[in-house]
């Protein structure tokens, strides 16, 4: 293991890897030496008010990882589907021989006052953001325990894993749930030398935020706000006075948490939030 290849010889599975943060994690962990299993639904979800990734996006992630010189195994699978995840993991382990790192990153957001939310819209967010992580853990952890190599799991929560807001209660509930899941799993998996931590980003410059619906929530006064139009409002959220962080800032935190540099760090929720939670 060399200093700039802390994940050399390891295999990392990432959900929601077709674009956004998941893609950045795939590339960053590959640069650090890991082979990558990239999973994404690569299809829309009806109740989500912006497009999810496409199959082209997933192919682009594959290309970017290959360009770094690492092996990549990309699979279309929905984290709501346990059988699909189980099959993807079995195939990936058959191909790469091991699994060391899991980044449960897939997630969606949708908006509305709680008492007005259609049942299905509520359920989709819970199913993807929370139960999807449960499925990801069920699909990966038994093989990691059996291999006896230890490992590291990072669950993507959010600053909304600690704070509330209006109009996103399903999202806030799931991201709080992810923090609880992190602490429970850290206790359960400690004896197996599998560490479990979460990352808790504030706004990240991805489709989830930079789509017309979300931008509109930040600037209800404008017809069709652009990212530039929300910068001031978003900067005011953060002591460091920046509107958003870049995907790679979250990737760097994940690289630290999954490398041996953090070998005794478990149960931690690491904010990448320009100070939002310090307020």
């Amino acid at each position, binding site marked *: 293991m060399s200093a700039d290849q802390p994940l050399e010889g390891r295999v990392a599975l990432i959900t929601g890897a077709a674009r956004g943060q998941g893609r950045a994690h795939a590339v960053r962990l590959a640069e650090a030496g890991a082979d990558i299993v990239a999973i994404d639904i690569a299809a829309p979800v009806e109740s989500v008010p912006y497009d999810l990734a496409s199959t082209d996006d997933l192919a682009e992630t594959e290309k970017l990882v290959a360009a770094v010189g690492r092996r990549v195994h990309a699979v279309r699978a929905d984290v709501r589907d346990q059988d699909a995840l189980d099959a993807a993991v079995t195939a990936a382990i058959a191909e790469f021989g091991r699994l060391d790192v899991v980044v449960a990153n897939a997630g969606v957001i949708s908006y509305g006052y709680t008492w007005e939310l259609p049942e299905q819209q509520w359920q989709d967010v819970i199913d993807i953001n929370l139960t999807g992580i449960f499925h990801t853990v069920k699909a990966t952890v038994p093989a990691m325990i059996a291999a006896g190599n230890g490992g590291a799991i990072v669950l993507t929560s959010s600053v909304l894993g600690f704070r509330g807001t209006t109009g996103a209660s399903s999202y806030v509930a799931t991201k709080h749930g992810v923090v609880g899941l992190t602490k429970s799993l850290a*206790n359960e998996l*400690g004896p197996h030398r599998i560490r479990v931590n979460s990352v808790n980003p504030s706004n990240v410059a991805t489709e989830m935020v930079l789509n017309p619906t979300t931008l509109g929530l930040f600037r209800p006064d404008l017809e069709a706000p652009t990212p530039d139009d929300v910068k001031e409002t978003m900067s005011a959220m953060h002591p460091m006075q920046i509107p958003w962080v870049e995907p790679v800032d979250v990737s760097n935190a994940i690289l630290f948490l999954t490398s041996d540099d953090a070998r005794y760090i478990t149960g931690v929720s690491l904010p990448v939030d320009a100070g939002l939670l310090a307020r």
Partner: protein
Amino acid sequence: MTGRVEGKVAFITGAARGQGRSHALRLAEEGADIIAVDAVTDYASVPYSMARPADLDETCALVRARNRRIVAGKADVRDQEQLRAVLDTGVAELGHLDIVVANAGICTAQAWDDVSTEVWSDTIDTNLTGVWNTIVVAAPHLIANGGGSVIATSSVAGIKGLPFFAPYVAAKHGIVGIARSLANELASHHIRVNTVHPAGVDTAMSAGLGALGDLIACEPNLGPIFINTYPVEMVDLLDVINAVMFLACDESRYVTGLELTIDGGNTIR
């Protein structure tokens, strides 16, 4: 390959030995010049010895052996003037200041009714006011530099109410309060403020806590509070500096106000 903190200057308190020295050496290996202080003075109230002047000299020699510059001096974190004297000399010589590691500390183990006035005030003065002094003396240099990263060494005792350590627990919790406030106040200057919270580390400090075994033997139900969820009893110096390094370098450029545990899951039980 350039180092992760190449060209930066780091100010470290309690740098003569233990974690402080380990931080100085790793930061130097990753390209930083060092300003190191230590009081190198024993406390009547603390049953183990503090570092010796020769220890501080050894830290200097080891940093220089890594081809980095170091300005070191005797300074007690309880005294802002002493800190300022060494720090100002260091910044004048090395050009600027980017990283502050407020690490100096002391620790004694005793039941609450055996905490002497002296133990209480020495612990609060060194571990809490000492961190405050370190940061307020350093902050103007960081502001002048256009930004920086401050890391204060708290402990599992900064999160949990460890028994037999009441003054230490109070001071280490207090550090979190300082860090949270200053993370807000200093953010507009691009200064990040975070704390690290190690579980037991094998240093002269933990070796000096022999009284703990007897105290737990008298109250065995309190023993499990000290057990980590991960199957390790202690963490190594390397584990603490790895966390400090992440917070010190630009990989964490938007991380501030964080309490980063290096505790084998001790605080989530």
